[in-house]
């Protein structure tokens, strides 16, 4: 999504207009907001305006020592960190351009001087969708020599994945290989990324400044981002009333999926279909008690970390992960428990077993299986800070106003002889009448309905992946978009797991859905999934795509998204008469064009 070309350029002299057009081209809305803030900042200091603007809009080659910050982000963390960094640099008087990786004009790479990359890792070791093109280019044969370039890479990841921060790692290595020199060493940030990102940003900024001679501040920036406007953020979540918590799978179902409605009334929070809602969970009280009891600790014992001192129970229920295991914790626990077995798992050649342990065990299971004596302070220090969970928003404000709806699979299962829960989904599922939960909006510019309302959209969302598409269809119906909507949905059973069945039936009657193709995996002897329906409908599907349809996939990342991707390529082969390579290129091109977006988890 590039900047709106219909930008009113009238007040500017033609020459400048051209420059401005070039400058804003390819900037995403975040950058544009920032830029407008920047300009506002300049405007507020007449003295420096002339100089500032002239440098800010200087002609190619762009001012020798302009810092370029590129981010690749799926769920907004890397983006947010990149924005913060760019802002800091800007306030420090540096000349900065902030670009989402897919907006970065790769031909300019060879002339870059200062580059900071903030990128997360997705899939298993894959780039975020918005960075695919950028990463391909840098890793590819066509990547230029970069002798002049000084760079820094901040990788984001989750240490519970085998390929921890893979993309940050390979980019960092490759840039060096191309002859560029590091401003500072790469950092790998785990899900509690701030702890790593903050100090790294400090150091990065410092070494960038050292590179830049002139240190005279140019302008200060008035941030104007919409989320900021609302005053609520990830760090400062809004307490939303839970106005509905309704199970939407039938009695007979073995899944417990909830339709959750939250009130954003008075928060000023605004979202677009495709955005996600961030939720700060609390761990299940029963689980907190179990851990405390197991370790024979005093729940009220004050524990101090940095400046904060509070009772152990509070740390465990509101600030530490108890349901997700991480490698570092296992390592510390292994030492403490002196468990040879655990230590073996930690050795490189056992990573598979370790992954299995991380997937199957929660903290309490580890503590039970390998007893060790933790002190309250050690424990809190060792546990990862609790991180918010994201949920695709399942509604459109055009229809629900100051509400946000979610479709949440309640993670609740028995393992090792005790009940287990997912922190956030259980927290939501347990909300009653007067429930309130801390939330924030996580914008997702990569997952947007086509601006052109006459475009068709194809939505592939099995399971809870259907959530954003409820929002899409609501939105397109409300705005009277004339493009057709085609939904692929799947789940185990027609009778018990047909999420929002009544609403889809109604949408079909009203023509708000043109097609609905269903795959209920366990209603027949052999399993059947959406990707099979995609193949069956291949001819029609390909026709839609050729006619300009936008494709969206949401839901399970581990298997569904991959299988659907493969099915799409297959469709391009069978019905587009393409070779496998061309078909693959065709599909990833759709991705580059933003016509094939994924929101998978």
């Amino acid at each position: 999504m590039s900047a709106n070309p219909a930008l009113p350029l009238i007040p500017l002299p033609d020459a400048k207009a051209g420059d401005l057009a070039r400058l804003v081209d390819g900037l995403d809305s975040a950058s544009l907001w920032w830029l407008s803030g920047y300009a506002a900042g300049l405007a507020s200091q007449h003295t420096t305006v002339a100089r500032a603007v002239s440098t800010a809009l200087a002609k190619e080659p762009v001012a020798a020592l302009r810092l370029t910050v590129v981010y690749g982000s799926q769920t907004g963390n890397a983006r947010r960190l990149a924005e913060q960094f760019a802002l800091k640099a800007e306030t420090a008087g540096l000349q900065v351009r902030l670009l989402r990786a897919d907006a970065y004009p790769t031909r300019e790479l060879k002339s870059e001087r200062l580059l900071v990359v903030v990128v997360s890792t997705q899939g298993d070791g894959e780039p975020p969708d918005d960075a695919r093109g950028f990463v391909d280019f840098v890793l590819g044969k066509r990547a230029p020599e970069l002798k002049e370039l000084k760079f820094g890479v901040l990788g984001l990841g989750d240490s519970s994945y085998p390929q921890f921060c893979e993309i940050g790692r390979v980019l960092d290595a490759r840039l060096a290989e191309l002859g560029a020199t590091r401003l500072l060493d790469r950092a790998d940030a785990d899900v509690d990324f701030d702890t790593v990102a903050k100090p790294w940003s400090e150091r990065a900024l410092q070494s960038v400044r050292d590179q830049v001679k002139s240190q005279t501040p140019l302008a200060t920036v008035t941030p104007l981002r919409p989320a900021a406007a609302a005053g609520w953020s990830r760090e400062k979540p809004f307490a939303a009333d839970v106005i509905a918590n309704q199970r939407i799978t039938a009695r007979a179902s073995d899944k417990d999926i909830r339709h959750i409605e939250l009130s954003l009334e008075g928060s000023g929070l605004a979202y677009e279909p495709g955005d996600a809602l961030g939720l700060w969970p609390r761990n299940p009280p029963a689980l907190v008690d179990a851990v405390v009891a197991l370790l024979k600790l005093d729940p009220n014992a004050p524990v101090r970390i940095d400046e904060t001192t509070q009772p152990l129970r509070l740390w465990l229920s509101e600030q530490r992960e108890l349901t997700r295991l991480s490698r570092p914790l296992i390592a510390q626990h292994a030492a403490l428990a002196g468990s040879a077995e655990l230590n073996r798992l930690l050795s490189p050649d056992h990573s598979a077993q370790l992954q299995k342990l991380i997937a199957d065990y929660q903290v309490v299971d580890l503590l039970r299986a390998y007893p060790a004596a933790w002190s309250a302070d050690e424990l809190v220090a060792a546990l990862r800070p609790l991180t918010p969970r994201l949920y695709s928003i399942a509604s459109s404000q055009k229809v629900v106003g100051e509400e946000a709806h979610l479709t949440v699979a309640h993670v609740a299962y028995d393992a090792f002889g005790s009940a287990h829960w997912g922190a956030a989904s259980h927290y939501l599922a347990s909300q009653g009448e007067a429930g309130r939960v801390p939330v924030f909006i996580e914008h997702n510019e990569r997952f947007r309905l086509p601006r052109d309302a006459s475009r068709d959209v194809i939505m592939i969302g099995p399971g809870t992946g259907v959530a954003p598409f409820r929002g899409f269809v609501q939105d397109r119906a409300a705005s009277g978009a004339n493009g057709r909507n085609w939904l692929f949905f799947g789940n185990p059973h027609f009778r018990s797991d047909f999420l929002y069945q009544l609403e889809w039936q109604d949408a079909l009657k009203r023509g708000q859905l043109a097609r609905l193709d269903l795959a209920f995996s366990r209603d027949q002897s052999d399993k059947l999934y959406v990707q099979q329906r995609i193949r069956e409908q291949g001819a029609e599907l390909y026709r839609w795509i050729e006619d300009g349809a936008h494709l969206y996939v949401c839901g399970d990342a581990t298997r569904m998204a991959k299988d659907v991707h493969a099915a799409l390529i297959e469709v391009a082969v069978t019905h587009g008469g393409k070779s496998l390579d061309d078909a693959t290129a065709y599909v990833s091109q759709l991705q580059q064009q933003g016509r094939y977006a994924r929101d998978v988890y």
Partner: protein
Amino acid sequence: MSAAASPVEKIKADSRYLRGTLQESLADAVTGSLREEDQTLIKYHGSYQQDDRDLREERRQQKLEPDYSFMIRTRTPGGIATAAQWLKLDAIATRFANGSLRVTTRQAFQFHGVIKRELKPTMAAINASLIDTIAACGDVNRNVLSAANPLLSSVHATVHAQAKALSEYFLPKTRAYYEIWLDEERVAGSDAHEPEHEPIYGTTYLPRKFKTAFAVPPVNDVDIFANDLGFIAIVEHDTVVGYNVTVGGGFGATHGDPTTYPRLADVIGFVTPEQVIAVAEGVITTQRDWGNRAERKRSRLKYTIDDRGLDHFKAEVERRAGFALAPARAFVFDHNGDRFGWIAGEDGRWHLTLRIEAGRIVDRGERRLLSGLRAIAQIHDGDFRLTPNQNLIVANVPVAQRAAIDALVAEYGLDLYRSASPLRLNALACVALPTCSLAMAEAERYLPDLVTKLEARLAAHDLADADIHLRISGCPNGCSRPYLGEIALVGKAPGRYNLMLGADHRGQRLNRLHKENIAEPEILDTVDALLARYAGERGRDERFGDFLVRAGLVAAKPGIPLEVRT
């Protein structure tokens, strides 16, 4: 078609002989239901769309459509199935339906809970058992009843053959059933109205359902007078010399609508066996042409007769039949229940009548009826007979087999007939909730519990073995023929019923509304008080219903004379 014609008439007319858009409806994967018109048409194929009413509200909140499923009813004239067929039906009930077989008050089997996706294989499987479901429902001649009491085997056989012949004669001729369920090749041009046609029914079939029964006195197990058309076998020297013809029976009524009412049939004369089909055709075609097609509530034959006059109607039937009916012969019914336990037929073969509470054959706790009957069917070389009282006869058992069958009966808890009180043995209850879309109150599910409570009251008055006929219907449609119950409950709202009293036990006198819209405590107390009177004042062998009328406790309706002499 007259402007006033009911919507159903248009659906029939436009249906291309009952095809409608059933194929398309079945193919629609987004819903478990059929298109509205097809919901009407599928009845003619023997099935009703239903949903689990226990789950309706819950599923609405879950944003799920109702839990749609289908009831399938067989066309089994006289309710006879071979052991081999039994095993097939049992397999279907287990594989496709809700694990139960339901014996109906019209000698048919019902499957419940078949989902749309499996409807076609189920219908095909039923057909493969050489039983069909054509015209088991819909505005046609339904499953034909025939006295189940096999005491006089040869007579029973004759009458059953007659019933079967009549059932087949009046079957719709359309191939729709074969095309939709059995993939029969479509006959050329049959989506135009020719060449195929319905010689008797025409494109709009009958105005309403039509029911026919054959009775063999002295047992009126079929409740002959509840049928649109009835034939009472007249037996001389062990042979059927002919039948008395009855017309205009029917029970459906609507609460608070006096223009609708239960009605007992009139005896209009006597015909020889050869004349049966002709007179039936006279009655059916007259109803076809005279029946009310505007208002379904008043379209049954009983209203046609009351609106046009019995004599006028009879004359028209005779005109169409081409002969005059002979005067009715004498006949006597002494009861309308079943005789339980073993009975020897005149041919020396044995018949075991088992009590099936509310007709539901299912495994429940100690009583594993479905499994037990499966076990019996595996060793049984005779056949099974469904009674109009929702019971089951293991028929034509050679004496040598009795012991083996008794053993299975005991093993699987099929022996309710041995222990149950007369009240429990003879009670009837319709299906009602959760499957029946018209139910206003519980019936089948409530029966066992209610009987237990009434048994306590009976015992208190020393009436434990009083043979009193109790019937419960979940709504005034009267599927358990409640208007012929000595004590009857007709559903009005959840937990609330109209209490009806004073029918005889021969199916010849309707009961009367005694108390309207009352709940269990009042029902029990009201009945209790009357039982007290009965215990003290009844005459020798005097039945409860008869007593209530004699004692003036309920105002009897004029019924069929107890003995019809000529």
